[in-house]
């Protein structure tokens, strides 16, 4: 026991400040090859994928900047969340960005970063107008098929109208980054989302580097989400 402890201590001293280290040496490999392999799934405004265009979105921009700190460029791999989780577990990709939140079902499968940004789904109302706080019988539009439809129906007394495209003018249930464009003011918060990215379990050096990078950039992430969220 004592010998083991001494050995561990010696190892600590020898490796100096390079703690924690990756189990599979992912960080070293990224630096050596100059390539960060990122799995991305569409999740506007965090990851925006349009045919014929390079990937965009707040998390895409953040990962590009993170890769630069390691002296690497990003190789984007598009796919579903499930594909990326499986690939991450096998070490076929290094990091995953898909608009993940801290409550995601994958949280035991892969290593989440600490939340780098909190966004809210809100009911916004036109600036200057007054509405009852429970929104009784107020027509609130929300993008068809978006969780905001259900959230607004369940949590308010509003008459929720699913629409194909949101337009400025009336109250709407939307992500808070859209409020400015729709010229709305937040009235009620329907849901809070804490945003994270994921790396492979055990790649703790990469995890810690990514977390340190992201945690220093909350304002930057906020701006990116607001910009990339523009229609």
């Amino acid at each position, binding site marked *: 026991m004592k010998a083991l402890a001494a050995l561990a201590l010696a190892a600590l001293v020898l490796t100096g400040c390079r*703690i924690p280290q990756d189990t599979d040496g992912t960080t070293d490999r990224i630096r050596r090859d100059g390539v960060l392999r990122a799995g991305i799934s569409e999740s506007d405004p965090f990851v925006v994928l349009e045919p014929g265009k390079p990937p965009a979105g707040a998390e895409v921009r953040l990962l590009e900047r993170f890769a630069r700190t390691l002296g690497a460029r990003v190789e984007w791999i598009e796919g579903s969340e499930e594909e990326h989780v499986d690939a991450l577990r096998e070490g076929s990709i290094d990091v995953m960005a898909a608009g993940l939140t801290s409550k995601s079902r994958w949280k035991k499968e892969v290593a989440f970063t600490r939340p780098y940004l909190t966004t809210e789904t809100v009911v916004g109302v036109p600036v200057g107008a007054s509405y009852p706080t429970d929104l009784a019988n107020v027509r609130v539009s929300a993008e068809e098929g978006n969780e905001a439809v259900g959230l607004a129906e369940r949590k308010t007394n509003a008459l929720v109208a699913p629409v194909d495209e949101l337009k400025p003018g009336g109250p709407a249930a939307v992500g808070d980054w859209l409020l400015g464009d729709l010229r709305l003011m937040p009235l009620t918060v329907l849901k809070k989302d804490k945003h994270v990215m994921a790396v492979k379990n*055990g790649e703790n050096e990469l995890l810690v580097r990514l977390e340190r990078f992201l945690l220093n950039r909350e304002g930057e992430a906020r701006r990116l989400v607001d910009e990339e969220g523009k229609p």
Partner: protein
Amino acid sequence: MSGGGASRTFELPEQLQPVMKQAKRLEWLTLVYMLSAVIFVGLTLGQSQAMKAAWIDDLLGFLPPAAFLIASRFRERTANGKFPWGQHRAVSIAYLAAAVALLFMGLYVFLDSAIKLVYLEHAPIGVIPLFGHEVWLGWIMLVALAWSGVPPVFLGIRKRKLADQLHDKVLYADAEMNRADWMTVAAAMLGVIGIGLGLWWADSVAALFIAQDIIRDGWRNVRAATHDLMDARPRRHDNSEYHPIAEEMEREAESLPWVREAVVRLREEGHVFAGEVQVIPEDETELVERLDEVADRLLGLDWKVHDLVIVPVTEIDVPEPSEAGD
């Protein structure tokens, strides 16, 4: 009661009362300290198996001090119409239930860690914002572990001394567990450092080591509690051998000229012993008075002997204990 007999309201001998008070104070201190350790380690658990195991080990540490303090209340509660033997046993039952729960927790951690090892699960440990810095959570874990591992050693050494004076097996078990705590903590630390060095298996291996220790402790406690409830022959507080008081009582009884043979059968009632003495009298003159005299003499031997029934018999049929047996 048939024959003679005596019982008294339980009271510690005067010279032991300050020791008892000190023991109670120490156990309260242990509880408060344990709570702080459980909260600190609990807050830094993360996804480390070794930390989880160490945390459960800390939870286990609540058991003996709680049992000791509760028992020290119950011992003062005397017998009544509903519970003619007093209520010491309530403590044994609670002790058994807690011991079983902890045994299963140990088994759970063991299996959980074994599965993680087999499936090559790697533990992620990230950073935590602390006073404006992002510190690797692993460092905080090490601090939490040190807090949960070093003070108990000193508590354990002090409690051990008091346990020897009080002949108290719960206090003794607690002291021994505290003294052994540093091993759990050292194992968990190696697990966390292992993760830091990228040795993914270190975490689960450390957890397995701690889990087997919890299982052993749990099993030992289940056994002790079960034996209590089964009225096993009392052992010394450190479990080293049968308590010599039974033999001493037999010799004392047989030293009386009118006693041909005497056999003592004792059981534990919480901190004290109760039981019966079967006596084959040489002649039966003034038998009742003589039986009372035996009871007084035997109760005077040791404060631990608390409640005796003396039965005159013509033949004795009580199995002798084997020296090795337990």
